[in-house]
């Protein structure tokens, strides 16, 4: 075993450790670790402690009922979770979404991505013992959560996006908040770099840890920043632009190394890119409706006057309560905070989906983590876990 230029003779000392589900560094997950000395020989990952049976419930509920359900698994990235599902449903329904609603979707999705990355950073930081990173991650996230609260009416369980549009409109006050928040986040990132990213201690813990080569990343089906940290240029926002992403200018940060530090850098740069997107959205957002005409016409005029003209809010027509999309199937993908999120909806013409398949980025990280843990040091278990940004409820669904 070569490590850092030193030859180590490892005396075989085997043992087993059961990490989790009640362990400060495991989350709702059990990792059964076979150790040889300090080296992990094999890791058996046992997820499912927070299984919500989204797919089974999806077959037993109306389409509209699933909006709050699908965003629960990754509660800190709920807008993206919601968006992916709605895109699939819209494909079956064959609805056009107005331009302004597309921009608003991208706006909310990017805020959600920033919040998700900050959360992931916080978890990574506390896993490797850096409590300030943990608190800063959650503290900075609060700023974005406040904006989402002003926009959608709820802090994290937004349920903001509905088939055909979004529920509420952007107001000048929210634009003002967002501008300030962007300025704040840019300043704070500099301090993040000093205390976290450029900290030699953090570098030592993340560099050359959990190295995933390009080929391995593709073979194991990694997603999102984990994939881009391994030098694969892939982002669902570019490959299949949804929302307003085809009109927005942003870059996809890709790093070659494939270790924990590269993944962390990708996340940090994505925050910067998301801030850029938010600026563009604020600047470019067109005027207009935020709900497809097909549904907008169904709203009673008296209500429209009160809510849309009075409070810039969309109310739902009764159609939504149990709509029946035509027979068909649709697969949608969005780039959620942790990576690519895939929904596969099969409709048999009834008010309930015949089959709902939800593949979350953390779900795809299970196999990646299992493979990366082999041969790592025991102390690296937490840094691999944290740098993959694995979120157990999201993987269990």
């Amino acid at each position, binding site marked *: 075993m070569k490590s850092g230029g030193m030859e180590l003779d490892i005396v075989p000392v085997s043992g087993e450790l059961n990490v989790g589900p009640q362990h400060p560094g495991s989350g709702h997950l059990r990792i059964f670790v076979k150790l040889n000395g*300090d080296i992990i020989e094999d890791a058996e990952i046992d997820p499912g402690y927070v299984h919500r049976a989204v797919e089974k419930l999806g077959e037993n509920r109306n389409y509209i009922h699933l909006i709050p359900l699908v965003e629960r698994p990754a509660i800190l990235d709920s807008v993206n979770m919601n968006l992916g599902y709605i895109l699939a449903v819209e494909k079956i329904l064959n609805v056009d979404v107005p331009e302004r609603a597309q921009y608003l979707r991208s706006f909310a999705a990017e805020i959600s991505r920033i919040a998700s990355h900050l959360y992931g950073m916080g978890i990574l930081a506390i*896993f490797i013992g*850096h409590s300030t990173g943990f*608190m800063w991650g959650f503290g900075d996230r609060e700023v974005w959560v406040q904006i989402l609260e002003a926009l959608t009416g709820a802090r994290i369980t937004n349920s903001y996006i509905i088939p055909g549009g979004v529920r509420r409109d952007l107001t000048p006050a929210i634009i003002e908040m967002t501008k300030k928040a962007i300025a704040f986040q840019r300043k704070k990132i500099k301090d993040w770099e000093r205390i976290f990213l450029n900290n030699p201690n953090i570098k030592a813990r993340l560099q050359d840890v959990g190295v995933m080569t390009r080929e391995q990343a593709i073979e194991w089906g990694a997603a999102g920043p984990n994939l881009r940290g391994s030098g694969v240029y892939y982002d669902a926002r570019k490959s299949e632009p949804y929302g307003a992403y085809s009109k927005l200018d942003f870059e996809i940060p890709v790093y070659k190394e494939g270790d924990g530090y590269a993944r962390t850098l990708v996340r940090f740069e994505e925050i910067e890119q998301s801030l850029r997107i938010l600026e563009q959205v604020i600047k470019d957002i067109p005027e207009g409706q935020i709900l497809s005409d097909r549904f907008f016409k169904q709203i009673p005029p008296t209500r429209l006057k009160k809510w849309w003209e009075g409070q810039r809010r969309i109310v739902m027509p009764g159609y939504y309560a149990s709509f029946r999309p035509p027979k068909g199937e649709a697969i949608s993908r969005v780039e959620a905070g942790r990576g690519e999120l895939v929904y596969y909806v099969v409709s048999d013409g009834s008010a309930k989906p015949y089959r709902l398949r939800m593949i979350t980025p953390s779900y795809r990280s299970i196999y990646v983590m299992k493979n990366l843990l082999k041969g790592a040091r025991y102390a690296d278990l*937490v840094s691999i876990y944290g740098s993959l940004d694995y979120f157990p409820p999201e993987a269990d669904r």
Partner: protein
Amino acid sequence: MNILFDIRYYILYPSFFAPIILPGLIFTAILLLTTIWFERKAAARVQMRVGPYYASKRLGGYLQLVADALKFVFSEVIVPDGVNPTLFALTPVLVVAMSFLPLAVIPVSVIPPSGSIFSIYFYDFYDPNVGLGVLVGLFTQYNMLLILAIESIYPAMIILMAWSTNNRFAIVGAVRESYLSVSYDVLLLMSTISMALEYHTLDLVKIVQSGVPGILANPLAAVTFFIAMIIGSARFPFDIAEADTELVLGPATEYSGLLFVLTMAGSYVGNFVYALVFTDMFLWGWYPLSGFPGALLTVIKASILVFFSVFLRSVYGRYRLDQALRGSWKYIFPLAIASMFLGLVVGYLWIQ
């Protein structure tokens, strides 16, 4: 008059005063609470929080620590199945005792022949090296070695504690502690020896009284000693044996209640002991002062050092074991050797 005499006779007797009152038990207990309070408060300030607050709003939540301590005292001590209860209960006590012990032999001040409240004990604690009395529990001329010798028993007690709890995480923590203790003890000893070579003595009092602070005479040794002190007292970024996200709480995993407090107190006391030695050796100790003010100066300097080392929690994460070992053997160990040479050369040229 009688009572005053009694106070002077009993309480101010250095063998009682030093281990029990000033650097000893009572002061250390207060410092312990203050340190933990400061640690939480400082981390809270850096981390955009308030920290302890509601237990006593006027004192900035200082009494929170008292409340925590009381809570721990009254909470149940759970003895797991399959352990030897005697050993299980005894080892945390040994850990704390071993970390407290060096406080009895660390000089904190000197006693002038007259003018100080300790002056009546001038002759009992006379140090021929400097021609003054020494405020210390037990005076020897070789106190540098004695302190380090006693303090190096402390990691052995931690390992014993982990072994007696029969827990896998504790065993892994103990193995880590044993690796670390080997590496930092060497650094501590080497920087101490370099100071001894430089000042031609094994007596801390002589180093302080020489009038030249060690940090100027041998900065390399100061750096080495400081890093070794952080490793030795398990402060961040070397909180490796107790790594909570990896090993739950390392050697202290199975402890609860009062025994848990004891296991935690050990490392803080150890930190204070090293800080006191660092103050005497490098930071001029009590130097222009003597008697009681001198002792105060020493412990204040040491407390600031302790505060700084707990402040590092809010800056650093945790190194991996192999990185800490590589760091200390590959980078700090050569530094220690360099400091020894520096001590040798300077000591040869600078004959007092």
